[in-house]
């Protein structure tokens, strides 16, 4: 009797482990196939990220995308959930036309390598700037995009241009005033 119950116990353990293993392998296959290590607009993750819930508290944020060749695109006062970060906002505004490499735990960060079809190339790359309302100047973000929490009335800018490890990239607007940080 006891042996039978032990067999059932082992059987349940084995079946559960197999189910988990299949689910994990399936999820891995899905991640590799749909994203190939990057997030793209074909990804179901995009739909989850940008599907705005009803009833969430909303804020408005503006985003400037400067393509480095004089072309600038403003997304003015977009209403988004207050829980979103700058990554979710960018994904939403660009309809997930964002290439990003995700660095998992413990970093849990996205490194954006392309926006609206314009990808990093050589020394040209995307950088993110925050508009500081208290100083009326732009500040180059010192933290990753996932760590930028949104506030009501906030303005961000994505800038495509040359950058080096020694100096900050060019500000979003020509001759715009810059500060090292908003605080």
């Amino acid at each position, binding site marked *: 009797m*006891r042996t039978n*119950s*032990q067999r059932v*116990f*082992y059987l349940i*353990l*084995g079946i*559960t*482990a197999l189910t*988990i*293993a299949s689910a*994990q*392998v399936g*999820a*891995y296959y*899905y*991640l590799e196939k749909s994203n190939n290590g990057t997030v793209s607009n074909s990804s179901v*993750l995009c739909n*989850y*990220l940008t*599907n*705005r*819930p009803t009833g*969430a508290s909303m804020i408005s944020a503006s985003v400037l995308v400067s393509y480095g060749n004089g072309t600038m695109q403003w997304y003015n006062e977009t209403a988004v*959930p207050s*829980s*979103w*970060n700058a*990554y*979710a906002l960018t994904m939403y505004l660009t309809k997930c036309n964002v290439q990003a490499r*995700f660095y*998992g*735990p*413990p*970093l*849990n960060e996205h490194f954006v390598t392309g926006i609206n079809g314009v990808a990093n190339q050589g020394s040209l790359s995307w950088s993110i700037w925050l508009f500081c309302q208290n100083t009326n100047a732009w500040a180059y973000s010192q933290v990753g995009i*996932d760590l930028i929490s949104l506030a009501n009335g906030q303005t961000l800018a994505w800038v495509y241009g040359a950058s080096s490890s020694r100096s900050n990239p060019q500000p979003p607007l020509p001759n715009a005033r810059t500060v090292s940080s908003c605080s």
Partner: protein
Amino acid sequence: MRTALIPVFTALSLATNYAMIDIPNVKLMDAFVFIGAFLFGLEVGVGTAISIWAVYGFINPYGQDDLALLLFLMTGECLYAIAGALLSRTSVARDLIAKQLQTMSIYKQPIGFGVGSDTRILLQIKTRVRNLVNNARPYGRMSLLFGLIGFQATFAYDVLTNFGSWVFKTSSLYQALIIGVITGVPFAILHEASNLVFFATVVPPAIAAAKRVGLHFQQRIT
């Protein structure tokens, strides 16, 4: 006495964590938390789990964890303690360990009294080989049992912590769960595979050895 075991397991776990820092998600600490709870009770396991993350969450070359994620990590680590404490109460685990100890006591018995020296040596070798095979059998079952339990506890830990790393970045709990599970899957697979191996190879001999030297269930520790 039991409280003194918490820093011992914590120190052991932290030492191996830092030694294995270059291999992400492959750590012996989960096995140590499980062993602590299995041998000495839930309090030791939970105490060890929380103490480890109280140090490892802050002093980490990859950076500090924020408080919310740290809570998820501590809770997730406690799952190993719960698994260990629960398994120690099951008849399956008790029977396996009893069999293992029985086999070891047979192994220790003197062999070949009253026969010639050549025959005695031959008898000793034969008996030792037979004992070795018999001895490996309960280890095999223990490996299967602990490996499967470790694998499932690791899956639960991964789901919880991946959910925790997304819960404040997404707009619903469901989103956090789906995104967390999918984006974290490469790390989860590595974590689950390594823990399956550790729980199947490290935990059974450690528990059997502890029993053999008299470190029995928590009721013996006062």
